[in-house]
């Protein structure tokens, strides 16, 4: 050991790859030896910094152990694959509990600092060797921090994408209210991708339900830009090619103003003030007539039954 260190110090100016891996082995051995002590230091500092407040002390300690062991393994083997898998798994567990990016990054950086300090203590009498050890340690430690952070962010993005999909699926129901009459209530902001999806669903709905009239209600749409307005016109045209008439209802005064200001040609679009008016107009086009039944005795209770 001593002679080995001596040789390393002598050749400090030109480190060969062999001596680097030798240093790494020594580093790993040191971390394994002091595992209990360093791990506790780390867990204590996590608690002190008020990170991971969503988790209990025991949970933090359990995760800390796992991260520590993974950390040492990565330092030893240089392969981050196992760590990537672990980071994904960890993120999956802690994201639903409200752990933020800065917390995760914080604890990984804390571990880096705890380990670096223990290296300072160990090599404080041999400064050239310390600097060599740090040369080996730092890139590996930074790589690990990056891997964990990237894994966390990727997992979050995956969840966000999943939720976006779910919202999209939910947000455009095509409903049949009468034979040959569909309504399509649109709620929320329409982006070009969603507009395209709405059109596709509507056209498929027209074929599946053999619809002749479609009422699109946009009461729940806060704003419309020219792209979306043009897409709506396209939807109307496409529906017409399939033999269906489209009635658009619920244009707010803001949207009406926007459409007039940006000069979208809406002459081919049939618009009615609100959904009720739209359905009445559609029923008229289809030849339906809703008659309120007169019983004479209890007129208040009857309308429900007739509609």
């Amino acid at each position, binding site marked *: 050991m001593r002679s080995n260190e001596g040789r390393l110090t002598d050749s400090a100016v030109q480190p060969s790859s062999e001596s680097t891996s030798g240093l790494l082995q020594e580093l790993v051995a040191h971390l394994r030896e002091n595992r209990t002590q360093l791990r506790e230091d780390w867990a204590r500092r996590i608690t002190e910094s008020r990170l991971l407040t969503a988790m209990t002390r025991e949970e933090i300690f359990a995760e800390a152990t796992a991260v520590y062991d993974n950390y040492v393994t990565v330092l030893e083997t240089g392969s981050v694959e196992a760590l990537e898998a672990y980071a994904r798994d960890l993120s999956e567990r802690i994201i639903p509990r409200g752990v933020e990016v800065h917390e995760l990054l914080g604890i990984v950086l804390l571990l880096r600092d705890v380990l670096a300090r223990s290296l300072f203590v160990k090599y404080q009498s041999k400064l050239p060797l310390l600097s060599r050890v740090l040369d080996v340690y730092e890139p590996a430690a930074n790589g690990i921090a990056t891997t964990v952070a990237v894994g966390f962010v990727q997992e979050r993005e995956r969840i966000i994408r999943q939720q976006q999909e779910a919202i999209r699926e939910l947000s455009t129901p095509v409903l049949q209210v009468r034979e040959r009459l569909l309504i399509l209530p649109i709620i929320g902001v329409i982006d070009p991708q969603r507009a395209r999806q709405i*059109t*596709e669903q509507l*056209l*498929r709905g*027209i*074929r599946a339900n*053999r*619809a*002749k009239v479609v009422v699109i209600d946009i009461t729940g749409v806060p704003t419309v830009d020219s792209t979306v307005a043009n897409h709506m016109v*396209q*939807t109307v*045209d*496409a*529906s*017409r*090619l*399939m*033999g*269906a008439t489209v009635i658009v209802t619920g244009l707010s005064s803001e949207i009406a103003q926007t459409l007039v200001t940006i000069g979208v040609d809406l002459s081919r679009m049939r618009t009615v003030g609100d959904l009720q008016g739209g359905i009445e107009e559609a029923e008229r086009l289809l030849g339906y007539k809703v008659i309120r039944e007169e019983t004479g005795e209890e007129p208040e209770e009857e309308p429900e039954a007739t509609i």
Partner: protein
Amino acid sequence: MLVPILKQGDFLIATIQSALTDDDLLRLRDDLAEQVGRYRSRGVIVDVTVLDVMDSFAARTLRALAHMVGLRGARTVIVGIQPEVAFAMVQLGLTLGDVETALDLEEGLELLHKRTKRSASRGR
């Protein structure tokens, strides 16, 4: 590929069987315009259900067909445009102008019955 034209009462029905060349389309247009006069038909249905593309030439020819048939005194309904085709057409900016469309053959016949009845009663 020749498009068969069937006479069904007062109406002519042309059902496209496979993808058509430009010449086939022109021939369909001319045949229909000619037969409308020969059979004294009041309406024409062109069924495009099997077409999975509609290019600008096809759209223009169908428009011309409808106008020619109209000048010869009959109405035209295009039926069976598929959702994907309809979407592609509007994206490419292709329209059928004021030509009437219906979902399928059944709807088209119903539409023609309604339209010709109305114009007949107006004529009286």
